[in-house]
């Protein structure tokens, strides 16, 4: 990890700034107007929602990698001859994964927010922003960290289940880009209870919405399914569920 740390840090900084640039410079006529300005009336949730989609991907990769290194190198076998209590080993990896993913999410959020303010100040104005906005941003950033940490533990659980970080990350990418979107189109009611949707909603602090009727209608109507706190509870349920299942399996599994 030490060898890759500068590269990972650079990637997080560049990623945060790139998203900040697109948010500030793009005006699609939908949602709050950030074109050149972060003026009074802007909500912290509006500001942070564009990077919320990034949180589950980043968190899953961090979580899967944190235990994947043990699995891939075979070091898990060496470690278990030192600390044979497997649930302790798994708990240690979950704690490490939570902290790593939470810090990464907080870091990228801070870079992003800083980027948007600098770009807004350069290209327009930040007049009218208040201390309350900064307080709300701080809360939202911490919540992003918590969402990221929980989803990293979910990623650890899935990786233990499939016994490979590569398989779990590839599977997650397929799920993230294809399967969950298919649910949103064809089974919208179920889609509101899926992990990525709820993680993003909790991280951004926004309601979970679903399509009413057919996604192929011209005028698609979105209705609120539940709020971000419920999304957080659903995320926690996924985390706890995957941790219990993976813990039971890991305790029984032959390490060979």
């Amino acid at each position: 990890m030490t060898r890759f740390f500068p590269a990972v840090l650079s990637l997080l900084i560049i990623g945060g700034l790139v998203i900040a640039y697109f948010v500030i410079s793009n005006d699609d006529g939908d949602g709050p107007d950030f074109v050149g300005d972060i003026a009074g009336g802007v909500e912290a949730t509006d500001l942070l929602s564009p990077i919320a989609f990034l949180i589950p991907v980043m968190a899953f990769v961090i979580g899967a990698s944190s235990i994947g290194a043990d699995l891939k190198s075979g070091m898990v076998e060496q470690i278990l001859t030192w600390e044979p209590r497997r649930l302790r080993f798994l708990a240690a990896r979950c704690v490490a994964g939570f902290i790593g993913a939470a810090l990464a999410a907080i870091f990228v959020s801070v870079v992003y927010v800083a980027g948007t303010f600098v770009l807004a100040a350069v290209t327009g104005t930040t007049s009218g922003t208040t201390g309350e906005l900064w307080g709300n941003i701080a809360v939202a950033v911490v919540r992003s960290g918590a969402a990221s940490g929980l989803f990293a533990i979910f990623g650890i659980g899935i990786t233990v289940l499939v016994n490979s970080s590569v398989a779990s990350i590839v599977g997650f990418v397929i799920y993230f880009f294809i399967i969950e979107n298919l649910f949103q189109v064809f089974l919208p009611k179920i889609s509101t209870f899926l992990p990525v949707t709820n993680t993003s909603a909790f991280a951004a602090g926004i309601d979970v919405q679903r399509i009413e009727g057919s996604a192929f209608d011209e005028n698609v109507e979105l209705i609120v399914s539940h709020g971000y706190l419920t999304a957080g509870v659903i995320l926690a349920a996924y985390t706890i569920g995957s941790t219990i299942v993976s813990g039971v399996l890991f305790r029984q599994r032959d390490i060979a």
Partner: protein
Amino acid sequence: MTAAPIVEIRDLRKVYSRMRKDDVVAVERLDLTLGTPGTVHGFLGPNGSGKTTTIRCLLGLIRPTSGAVRVFGVDSTTSFHLAAPRVGAMVENPKMFPNFSGRRNLSLLADMAGIAKSEVDRVLSIVGLSERDGDSFESYSLGMKQRLAIAAALLKNPELLILDEPANGLDPAGIAEMRILIRSIAEEGKAVLVSSHQLAEIEQVCDDVTIIHQGNLIESGTLDQIRRHAGADNVVVEIENRDAAITVLAAAGVQARPRPAERELVVDVDADRSSDVTRILAEGGMYLQGLYAERATLEAAFLNLTGAAPPPPTAPPGDSAQNDADYIADDTASGQTGTGVAS
């Protein structure tokens, strides 16, 4: 109260279930007891005989299908954590974080067990890796990786050291060092369990031996007890006129067979009767160019017990097929242990 054996395996059975394939029985009804500190116990078997599976059961890494596995009286399957601080192990191929240096890998393990950093220096020095401790694990040769894994096993200063194929990947000098290391560890009063299929190495380092084959216990005992399965010792004679010597010996009631080497023959007498051989030949007007004893080897015993095929012959040109066959039988039943009794 009698102390529990260091290792106690009773009726161990391990079956691997496979999807859409027949189950694989890795170990079948194995018993093993290792009770004496300060001894080296060899655990022998061909590849796939169940050695590593047994060791993994001992370390709580895999669950036996049935049977009991205890280390220091502790059930390995459920409570190995109680015995773990007293057990150092290297299982199969060395496994460490590839991007970490050798020292960092060991430090990570030392931190986990609250072991002082000075111990890392000590074990690196023992295995001869002090000079390369800062290099990444992935840059190490197989032999260096093997030595680092042994260093990790020694880090706990264990009462029981389990080494699975420790000589893999080592050059001859490394193998010799390994042998000395294992003996020195045993001399410190620790028990060592060494699994291997390199029989010559085991023979030089072990006090007791257990042989398994296809998951079954074949034989267990001291080296001398095991060697008895190889048959009797022999005497090898170097002489100019081999065929005439065979005739002279046969006339005296001593059986002898030609060896592939042009002037060698194997005489079926114990080594302590070599003087009889020299006397018979001298009385027949024949004089030896050399004579040495060939002792029964562990390898021969192992091949006899496991029914494994002997190594292919390396017949010299001009020898008959019968001689080749004799050579094979002889070579698997005995090994050279001494040289140079001039005639």
